Every structure is written in structure tokens, then in C-alpha cells.
């Protein structure tokens, strides 16, 4: 994805193909449960599009491979094969291979090598086995062709005028491959129109002045013909159905796909003769170029193809820039509000109110553009679970709910990896082997449930399994072994459970390929903290484990609590704050050796924030403590004062301050001053070791 070419047309193909193939994965997995003809058609369309446009944009190895895949799938679509587990496996592997070919960025030594790899050969062989012994007689089979309009299975004659735009060749369009693909749909007569060619001295060899007129006899629906031109956005394309009444019965003509794909005018005519089609149903080449006369083709059928303008593709960097500007606007707005309230002039205030309303609306609109349903990420996990279940020899069912919950694209992009870690952990460590499950009186089928829902400005993602739960004794032993807890310590269940997020911590007895390298949960924790989220784990022995991620809906704007230390104002993300308490300093001093604060029946450790950050504070007698959740438990941050809540536009720190621990960025306040945003996760990673953040439950 990062390997962009300097050709926007190719980039756009790669982007679209990737999206299609990502969708394909989910669709293939769906087939396992049910395979309606609509579903099969949808898969077929994807394969067909990737094949056609791949060839067009210099991905001929990909197109070649896809051709075999498509052909095999066509048998499935026509009901000659039935879907089973092995077949879905094969299709998934073939799809992965297509992604790999796509990632190589087009034809080349690498693509050829990959196409020649044993893995590729294995897939191709399996595919050809599928096509090699199709059941029944080809011509006798009437395609079910659901999803296509009734009657489309019969042959129809289409007249197509294809005139690429002048820049088409420069943008990498290959009209020859396109025409090849079109003629592959059925029997075709192709005529080249050189009428617009300029004189030789005026000819720019890189410009395209040619047009093609094609008469196509095919049983495919119009959408398939349009599909050929799917990436030829700027070309002028007319597709007209000739003689709508003259439907040629399917049985008379051999199936289109059996025709030679190189069907030129001569081949096409020969094919027609073989097929005993009435000769007058195919217009001679000259006539084919003419627009259909009224009465022969219904009006309105002539139209340029191309995507309907329902959505616009925008590079996400552009959205980021707009978001930045909007951030500036929000800051300027805060400043304007402050000035207006100082001036106290009614007319000005009215305008300021209007501007504020507009800015708020604009911000919400902009944020919603960046929001994507979490479903896109969830879809990938079905594959993970399926593959892993096979590898581990466990039966596991993944149930996802709340896929429609929306998250900012930035958050979503980084979420998939930690969730995969979590699912792997649940399957490897959580779900027991079938025998153990039976012994425990559980059904053999392990269940993992992934749920997402919105709660205020946060999204909660919960992963639950009905496995064996965390083995707290093993965790305790490991913790002592690693020196993370004292041998005589009596850590609470919650404390032990949190240990699994410690770097390098793993209780797995043996390393499997799946997990047990002890990087998993630590990596999850790091990513979640970087996203300004928190993670919680609860587990019941023998019953299962539940991991909950809390994530902000967006990264660009957040709710923060403004706190003061001396003259410095800081922002603490509201998402990590549990509560705020007041305290007298003498109490802090009494507790000096071990600074803990009693909140109801728990003792919470706290630090003086000015000491952690090396800043000046008033250090008055009465101070405030903000209790926050961190990766290693709750901790209090003592500050001079709490100034209030505010919506904060987060600005990243520049090259000079990027890697400073404890800082997530900065923001500009209404009065124009700068406030730094505290990153609770890294704040304590840098200043305190795990031993320094004790958490005791009062007896």
C-alpha cells in the first residue's frame, strides 16, 4: 500500500483492487454458512473486475492467475460444484495469493517468481482440478444466473463504441487488453476507427486518437460489459443493445466462454457460423459503428459508463489537513469568544454565536467524515479465527456484535493489530482443547465474542471467551520469578491480572506459533495507550476472560481536564480520569515515605505532578488530586488547582520534543497560551518502574 507509483491511474487501480479483495475475504467466508447465487455472483464480479483491470494496468501475472480462479469459480456459480470447507480454504488461499501479487506492484521478476512458486502451483493445480471435471454437459446446463435480470442468460447483441480520452495512453491504459477482455465475453467484431487521427506532423505519439467499435454477442449482462471499462473513467463509452427483441436461444449457441478470447473480426464471424446464428443478427462491421436507429434500441440505453458520482475518493492526508485547519478554527473561535465577552457588545456577540454554531456544525460534520464502522476490522478476524482454529485443532466460533459502531479512521487503522493479538491469545491460552472442555462440562465449540459499542465520546470494545480464564497462580509464580512482585507479597486478583500487560510476560509453558512469545498483551497495551485508550482485563477461573478496550472516538479532538501547576496549565485527557479529590498537604507529608491516598476503602498511590514533570508549583496547603487509570493501575496526580473541562484540539509536538515521555501533544487555549497534554501511559513508564506503582487494597 505504501508502494505508490507515480502513475495515479495505477495507484487508483491498486487501491480499488485492494478494497475489492478485502471485501472478497469476507464474502468467501460467508459462503461457508450459505452460498446463494447472489453471493456467488458478487464474488465472481470481483474476480472478473480484478482480472480485467489488472491486465489493463500492467498486472498481467495477477490477471493471469485471477483468470484461473475466475474460471473455477464460474463452475461454482453455475451450480456444477458445491461449496464446502476445502473449497473455501482454496478460495481464501487463492485470494491471498492475489493480494501478494498486487502488493508486488505489477509485473516484474518478483511477480514472476511468486507466480512460479510451489504455493502458486499448488493453488493453480487445485483450481484446475475443479474445472477439469465439471459435471454434466456444458451446453445442456442452463445457468441459474440469479442476480442477473431474467432473460440475460440468453444471447444478446451489443454495440459498443469505445473512444479513450487523449491522455489515456499516458495514464497507462492498454486499449488492446481491454478489447481482448471484451471479446472474451463472447463473440465480437472489432473495428478500429482511425478517423480522428491527425496528420503525421501534428501527431503526438503519446496521445490517443483512436476509437473502437465493437459488436458483441454475449449472454453476459450489461454490467459485465460495463465492468470491462470500469477503470476507463475518462473515456467516452457507448453501450447499446441492438435488437432487444432478437434474443437468441441459449441452447443454439455454444457458451460464450468456450470461444477463443482472441476473437477478432474473422474469428468472430467464424464462430457465428459455427454456432448457426442467423447471419442478419450480427451487423457487418461498417454498420456496427453507426448509432442505433430509433426503434431498434430503446432510448436511454446509450450512456457513458463510469461510476455514479455517489461518493468521492479523497486521500486521507487531505482529510488530515482539513482537520488541522479546523483545529485552528476551533482555537481561533475560543479566542474570539473570549474577546467578544470582554467587549460585551450585543451585535458582536450575536455574530460570534452564529460563528460558533457554524464551527461546531462543521467540526461534527468533519469528524463524521473520518468515522468508519468498526465492521471493516471485525471482518478480518473471522479469517484469523478460522485459520487459527485449524492450526490449533480447536473448534472456535467467533460472534461479533456492534460492527456498526463508528471510530475515527486513525484509531481504526491502528486497532486491528492489537485485536488480532487479543484474539490469538484467547484462542491459544483461553479456549481449552476439546477434551479439556468436555471434562469441564463445556460444549466442544469454544466461543469468542467481540463486541463494540459507543459510550459517550468513547468506544468500548470487549473480547470475551468462554475458556479456562487466567491462571492467577501461574501468573503469580511467573511474577515472582521475574521479580515483578515480592515472594511474600499478597497482590490482589486485579493486580495479578494486570501483570499480563508487563513487557516480556508470558505464562505459556511452550511456545506455539500462535502466541506465547510474551509480546502480545504488552504490545496491545502500548498501542491502546498510544491511542489514548485504556485496557481492562477480568477473568473467572474456568469460566473465561474478558478484555475491555476503551478508546476515544477521535484522535484529533478530545475532552480534557485543565489543571494548574503554578503558572503552567496542563491538560489531562478526560478519558483516563476516574475522579478528583481534594486533600490537605500535611496528610501528604505524613504519608511521605509511601504516598498513598485513601479513597473510600482503597488506598491509591499518588505523586506530586510538579515533581514528575519538573515544574514549579504553588504548593499551597490545600491541593487537588486527579485519579487516573494507567496500564499499571490507578494513580493520583497532585496538582495546584483544577480549572475545568475543555474540548482540546491536539497538536503534535515537533521534532524537538516528539519523544518526550509523558506528553501527548499540546494545545492552544482560549487566551492564546499553550497547554501541554499529559500522556498518562508514558508518564509513568519513564519515571517509575513497576515496583514504584504499588496498589494495595485496604484490608
Amino acid at each position, binding site marked *: 500500500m505504501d508502494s505508490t507509483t507515480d502513475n495515479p491511474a495505477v495507484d487508483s487501480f491498486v487501491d480499488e483492487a485492494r478494497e475489492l479483495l478485502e471485501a472478497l475475504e469476507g464474502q468467501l467466508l460467508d459462503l461457508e454458512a450459505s452460498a446463494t447465487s447472489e453471493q456467488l455472483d458478487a464474488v465472481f464480479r470481483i474476480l472478473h473486475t480484478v482480472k480485467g483491470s489488472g491486465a489493463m494496468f500492467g498486472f498481467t501475472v495477477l490477471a493471469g492467475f485471477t483468470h484461473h480462479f475466475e474460471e473455477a469459480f464460474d463452475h461454482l456459480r453455475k451450480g456444477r460444484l458445491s461449496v464446502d470447507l476445502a473449497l473455501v480454504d482454496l478460495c481464501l488461499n487463492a485470494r491471498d495469493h492475489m493480494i501478494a501479487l498486487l502488493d508486488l506492484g505489477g509485473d516484474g521478476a518478483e511477480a514472476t517468481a511468486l507466480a512460479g512458486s510451489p504455493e502458486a502451483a499448488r493453488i493453480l493445480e487445485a483450481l484446475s482440478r475443479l474445472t477439469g471435471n465439471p459435471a454434466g454437459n456444458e451446453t445442456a446446463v442452463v445457468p441459474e444466473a440469479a442476480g442477473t435480470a431474467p432473460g440475460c442468460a440468453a444471447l444478446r447483441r451489443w454495440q459498443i463504441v469505445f473512444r479513450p480520452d487523449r491522455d489515456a495512453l499516458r495514464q497507462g491504459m492498454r486499449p488492446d487488453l481491454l478489447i481482448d477482455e471484451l471479446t472474451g465475453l463472447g463473440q465480437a467484431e472489432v473495428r478500429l476507427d482511425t478517423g480522428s487521427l491527425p496528420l503525421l506532423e501534428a501527431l503526438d505519439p503519446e496521445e490517443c486518437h483512436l476509437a473502437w467499435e465493437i459488436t458483441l454477442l454475449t449472454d453476459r449482462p450489461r454490467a459485465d460489459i460495463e465492468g470491462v471499462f470500469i477503470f476507463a473513467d475518462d473515456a467516452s463509452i457507448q453501450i447499446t443493445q441492438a435488437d432487444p427483441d432478437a434474443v437468441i436461444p441459449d441452447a443454439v449457441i455454444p457458451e460464450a466462454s468456450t470461444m477463443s478470447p482472441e476473437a477478432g473480426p474473422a474469428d468472430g464471424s467464424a464462430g457465428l457460423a459455427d454456432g448457426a446464428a442467423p447471419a442478419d443478427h450480427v451487423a457487418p462491421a461498417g454498420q456496427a459503428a453507426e448509432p442505433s436507429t430509433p426503434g431498434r434500441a430503446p432510448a436511454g440505453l446509450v450512456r457513458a459508463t463510469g461510476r455514479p458520482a455517489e461518493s468521492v475518493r479523497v486521500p486521507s492526508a487531505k482529510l488530515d489537513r482539513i482537520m488541522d485547519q479546523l483545529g*485552528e478554527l476551533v*482555537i*481561533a473561535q475560543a*479566542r474570539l469568544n473570549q474577546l467578544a465577552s470582554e467587549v460585551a457588545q450585543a451585535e458582536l456577540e450575536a455574530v460570534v454565536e452564529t460563528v460558533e454554531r457554524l464551527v461546531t456544525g462543521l467540526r461534527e460534520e468533519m469528524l463524521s467524515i473520518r468515522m468508519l464502522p468498526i465492521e471493516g476490522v471485525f471482518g478480518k478476524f473471522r479469517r484469523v479465527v478460522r485459520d487459527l482454529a485449524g492450526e490449533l485443532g480447536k473448534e472456535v466460533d467467533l460472534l461479533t456484535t456492534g460492527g456498526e459502531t463508528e471510530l475515527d479512521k486513525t484509531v481504526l487503522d491502528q486497532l486491528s493489530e492489537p485485536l488480532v493479538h487479543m484474539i490469538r491469545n484467547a484462542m491459544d491460552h483461553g479456549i481449552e482443547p476439546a477434551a479439556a472442555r468436555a471434562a469441564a462440562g463445556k460444549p466442544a465449540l469454544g466461543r469468542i465474542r467481540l463486541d463494540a459499542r459507543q459510550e459517550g465520546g468513547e468506544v468500548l470494545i470487549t473480547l470475551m471467551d468462554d475458556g479456562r480464564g487466567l491462571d492467577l497462580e501461574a501468573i503469580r509464580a511467573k511474577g515472582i520469578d521475574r521479580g515483578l512482585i515480592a515472594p511474600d507479597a499478597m497482590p490482589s486478583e486485579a493486580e495479578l491480572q494486570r501483570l499480563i500487560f508487563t513487557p516480556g510476560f508470558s505464562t505459556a509453558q511452550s511456545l506455539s506459533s500462535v502466541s506465547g512469545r510474551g509480546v502480545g498483551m504488552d504490545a496491545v497495551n502500548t498501542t491502546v495507550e498510544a491511542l489514548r485508550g485504556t485496557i481492562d482485563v477480568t477473568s473467572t477461573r474456568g469460566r473465561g476472560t474478558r478484555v475491555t478496550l476503551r478508546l476515544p472516538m477521535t484522535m484529533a479532538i478530545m475532552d480534557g481536564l485543565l489543571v494548574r501547576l503554578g503558572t*503552567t496549565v496542563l491538560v489531562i485527557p478526560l478519558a483516563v480520569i476516574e475522579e478528583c479529590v481534594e486533600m490537605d498537604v500535611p496528610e501528604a507529608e505524613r504519608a511521605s515515605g509511601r504516598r498513598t491516598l485513601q479513597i473510600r476503602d482503597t488506598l491509591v498511590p499518588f505523586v506530586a505532578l510538579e515533581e*514528575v*514533570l*519538573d*515544574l514549579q508549583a504553588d504548593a499551597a496547603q490545600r491541593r487537588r488530586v486527579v485519579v487516573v487509570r494507567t496500564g499499571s493501575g490507578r494513580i493520583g496526580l497532585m496538582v495546584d488547582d483544577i480549572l475545568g473541562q475543555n474540548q482540546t484540539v491536539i*497538536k503534535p*509536538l*515537533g*521534532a*524537538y*520534543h516528539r519523544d*518526550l*515521555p*509523558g*506528553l501527548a501533544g*499540546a494545545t*492552544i487555549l482560549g487566551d*492564546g*497560551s*499553550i*497547554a*501541554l497534554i499529559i500522556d498518562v501511559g508514558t508518564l509513568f513508564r519513564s519515571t517509575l518502574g513497576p515496583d514504584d506503582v504499588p496498589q494495595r487494597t485496604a484490608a
Partner: protein
Amino acid sequence: MSMGQPTVEVDGLAAPRPQGALQTLLVFRLAEERFALPVDDVVEVIEPTSATPVPHGPPHSRMLVNVRGVITPLIDLRQRLRIPPTDGAIANRFVVLDILLDGTTQRIAFAADEVETVLEADGTALEPMPRLASRWPATLVQGVCRDAVGVIFLLYPDRLFDPADMAG
């Protein structure tokens, strides 16, 4: 976001850029010494504004300032040039520059005791820095030029503001 930040007029700042070996320099003072940087990178010269300390910020950039809505690190040139901080001088101006760091433009600012002028210097008239006489890190000084007032040390902006160089 221009409140409290009027751009300070510097003589000749708007002068067109000359051709050839001539270089247009912004001359400023730090601790009674005169330094210069190419004017091309300079965005504006502003009056000092309140700065926000960066917890655990590196010695060369401990502060952030808000320059027209952009959060801008304030680079400590005294620290860079090893000029003792306690000579009683007060920064009268912030010089704001756009520099290129890893392919992206980063806005930075530094405090100067005074911004004197903009002058055109003939590149060929640039004298090398006398090695032994160098009070400043030699790698940061391109050379010495002179005007009617006296000596000016021309600095390398790339090295002066390079975060890697600062850390090392």
C-alpha cells in the same frame, strides 16, 4: 492569531533578494556579539511573547511559544553557542523561521537580544573563521564578515537547528 504579536519592522527586510554571490543576511545580537543568518528562512521578527515550559525538554529547546496559532519551539541559541545565560541581557525580539527537518517544514523561533538590520553580503568577502579564536562551536559558524560597525559571525542554519546535532 496575531494578538500581541505585531511584526517588528526590520530595516531592509522587504528588500528584494539580490542575485549572484550576494547573500541577504539578518543581523542580530546576542551577548554583545553580532551574528547573522540567511534572511530567506526568516518568516518574521516579533516581540517576545509568553513562553510555556516543556517538562523534561532538552536544554536547547525548553520552551514553546504561540506564534499566530502555531505551537513553535523556542530554540535557545545561547545554549547552542555556549554563551553563558546569565549576562543580564533581555531578549527584545523573537526571530521566527521556517526550516526543513526530515522533509517537513518546521516553524521555530529563537530569542535575540536585538535584531539590528538586514544587509547584503558578498559571499566572496566571507572570511573563514579563525580557528583558534573561535569562541563558538566552530562547526556552527560559516565565516566572518564585516560592515561599518564591526564583525558579524555568519551561522549555518541547518546545523544550528538540527535536532540530532543538538542532542550530540
